[in-house]
């Protein structure tokens, strides 16, 4: 049944802002984004919010609800008590543009720094052969809808602006893992993931995995295996010794 829900929404821009309280009608089956839209249509026509698909597929409506990173379109009102105040704020890790819309350009910059898919030379289109079991590892990571909630929650950059330069964040460390696990990719990103993407900053607290709306096992399936690959290459004493003696290329 319809009831008046209590919404507390952050409004402002890069210079200043504040939490504002609203009472908005909520109906059966609705999600927080529905209420934000009703707020726009009835009380605050210029309230800024990003959204697209409203079905959890595009990753546009990322924000924080009661402090937790969430997709507004997948946050059911029914998880809250009817008299509970629901606080909606923009993702904190990125600079705010206006209201619930942050500047997420950091992510697009990091994406550009990862060496792209590199197929074997001479393999023609139509000749690609891969087994399902082999593509599934990377397919899990390609479920990513780039909502950037994992980036938002990651404590390496959440309150440490200074780490942003050296750290690509879980989404892009996972992108490296995806390419490294692609059955046909021939490039080597193991050194770069440590030196350029800053894998060493991650201390596997699994916060990214917890907030992932696609339930991707970011830490277990992407970050830890990448850490193991780095450790194998850099810190395995036998490999180290072998490298010293034989001066292997690429190590």
């Amino acid at each position, binding site marked *: 049944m319809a009831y008046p829900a209590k919404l507390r929404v952050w409004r402002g*821009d890069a210079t200043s802002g504040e939490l504002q309280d609203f009472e908005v009608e909520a*109906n*059966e*089956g*609705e*999600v927080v984004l*529905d209420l934000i839209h009703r707020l*726009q*249509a*009835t009380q605050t*026509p*210029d*309230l*800024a*919010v*990003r*959204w*697209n*698909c*409203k*079905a*959890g*597929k*595009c*990753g*546009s409506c990322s924000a924080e609800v009661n402090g937790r990173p969430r997709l507004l379109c*997948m946050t*059911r009102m029914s998880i809250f008590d009817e008299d509970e105040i629901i606080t909606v704020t923009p993702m904190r890790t990125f600079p705010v*543009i*206006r*209201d619930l*819309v942050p500047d*997420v350009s950091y992510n*697009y910059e990091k*994406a*550009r720094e990862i*060496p*792209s*898919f590199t*197929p074997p030379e001479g*393999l023609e*289109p*139509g000749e*690609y*052969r*891969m*087994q*399902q079991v082999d*593509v599934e590892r*990377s*397919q899990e990571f*390609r*479920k*990513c*809808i*780039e909502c950037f909630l994992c980036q938002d929650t990651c404590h390496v950059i959440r309150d440490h602006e200074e780490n942003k330069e050296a750290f690509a964040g879980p989404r892009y460390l996972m992108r490296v893992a995806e*390419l490294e696990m*692609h059955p046909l*990719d021939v490039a080597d990103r193991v050194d770069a993931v440590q030196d350029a993407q800053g894998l060493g900053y991650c201390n596997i607290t699994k916060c990214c995995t917890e907030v992932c709306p696609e339930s991707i096992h970011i830490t277990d399936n992407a970050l830890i295996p990448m850490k193991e690959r780095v450790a194998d290459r850099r810190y395995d004493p036998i490999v180290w010794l072998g490298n010293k003696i034989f001066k292997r290329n690429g190590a």
Partner: protein
Amino acid sequence: MTEVERHNYDVVVIGAGGAGLRAVIEARQRGLSVAVVCKSLFGKAHTVMAEGGCAASMGNANSHDNWQVHFRDTMRGGKFLNNWRMAELHAKEAPDRVWELETYGALFDRTADGRISQRNFGGHTYPRLAHVGDRTGLELIRTMQQKIVSLQQEDHRRYGDYEAKLKVFAECTVTELVKEDGRVAGAFGYWRESGRFVLFETPAVVLATGGIGKSFKVTSNSWEYTGDGHALALRAGAGLINMEFVQFHPTGMVWPPSVKGILVTEGVRGDGGVLKNAEGERFMFRYIPDVFKGQYADSEEEADRWYTDQEGNRRTPDLLPRDEVARAINTEVKEGRGSPHGGMFLDIASRLPTEEIRKRLPSMYHQFRELADVDITAEPMEVGPTCHYVMGGIEVDPDTAASTVPGLFAAGECSGGMHGSNRLGGNSLSDLLVFGRRAGLGAAEYVESLDARPSVSEADVTAGATHALAPFDGPDDGGGEENPYTLHTELQQTMNELVGIIRKADEIEKAIDRLAEIRGRIRRVTVEGNRQYNPGWHLAVDLRNMLLVSECVARAALRRTESRGGHTRDDFPQLDAQWRNRLLVCAAADDQPVPAVDVEVKEQPPMRRDLLELFELSELEKYYTEDELAGHPERTA
């Protein structure tokens, strides 16, 4: 003088969905400088919503498949109104476009021997859709997004700047195309973030803006689908064809109300799911139309055998083309056999083991669990028709994607002709790739052929700015103000109720009257706040495009006095062979910001003989007039 940020590019692509990105890749690989402008963040375009797959007759799942079979299926799906040259190019080139994506890094699901797996879909004779579970669109968009990043990395190595030759202008809306001497000279718009104006000086624009679904209340489309490309082209002097054909996808969610319209992939039926009414009857067997008699199973037993033996059995009518299934559901509900929330039941739970459902349809499982508290592995889904796709769009040359306006190209959903009166599922993603590439190529060749570049006049820039800012000023006569959200809701109601899945002359006329009234009120739309990321203003600007395309749909729908594909007239319920070859072309009647719409009839050129011969005469007789078939070899022999 209006303060405006200026950029100069060889080609500007508007829209960053599948078609836009493929056009960008092609034009950049031809050596040109390219800008891609999109209303959302990069990688969020509506293509991510495509679930089932991308149709291409690679023959991996059934070696009998080839381009001729795909071509025939496409023409049948569109009830022979398709631009046959587009359907031919599409069927021939789709496999190459899919294989190409693998070289960009795409990871499709695999067959046992390691090739790309292909799934069944409505209207496709063989399993034909390359797919990744039920998130194929996401794979396409991400793959091409990442290909664009790799092209930028090449530019970075060569020029020291990622954006030297290819730049993404995200959250930027184009509101005007600017011409000089009848040719495209630029595109004018604003940054959503700041509200500041931006001008692209360019001799070639590729429109890849998608569809018009936001003109309807129940739709699977996102806010971006406001017919921008359709409207820009119309205002620039291009024609829109087939605007009366709007596809209502048979299976959208119907409950809860806030998710009504969200898509349920056809892959559910392709993988074995069946439609049932409230009495538990698999009703689709009663709805096989005459033109498809003999091609579909007429018993449940045969239909069920077909999933494992396609040579000895005919396919289930659950997989008839979308227009047929949507109409059938509509009738069942109307006759009182609907589900509790006014839809039909779609049952996969009793057809496949739990694990298999979760593996093949992960996002459907997730979507129903999260949004409707329904476990699709245990209970049926409730589904009903939702506005999904517009077959109509900008009239283009099939080979080059050029519109009638020099320098203006279009690809994907905003172009028209390819799908005729009804699109087959899976033919959209392949359409984006085939014609996205052709548009990129067409634009590149056009630019290379130019001796001199057109220039943008200052007057056009000023006019564009004035037009865009009008909603801040309010009505110039001091009269009552209109709220863009309210007006949008009224427009959606009008289209949904009066020009929806089933149409009648008096209802369409009523819709045209209401649209005229909205047209009067749209001038009074007033927005609050400033220009910085202001959704009320953005809607006010987009609303004009929605109104314009709605008028095109309504006026064309009134003219076409027959039922075909995505256009069903209650007062003219039959297919009329006299209409098969006639296109309705919408054109702007004046140069107002929201121009009046003229509709004219135009005949399509007859199908090339070698293509016509791919069909049995007995099938053509169901669609063609006697005169048209007089010269058919089977008749003259």
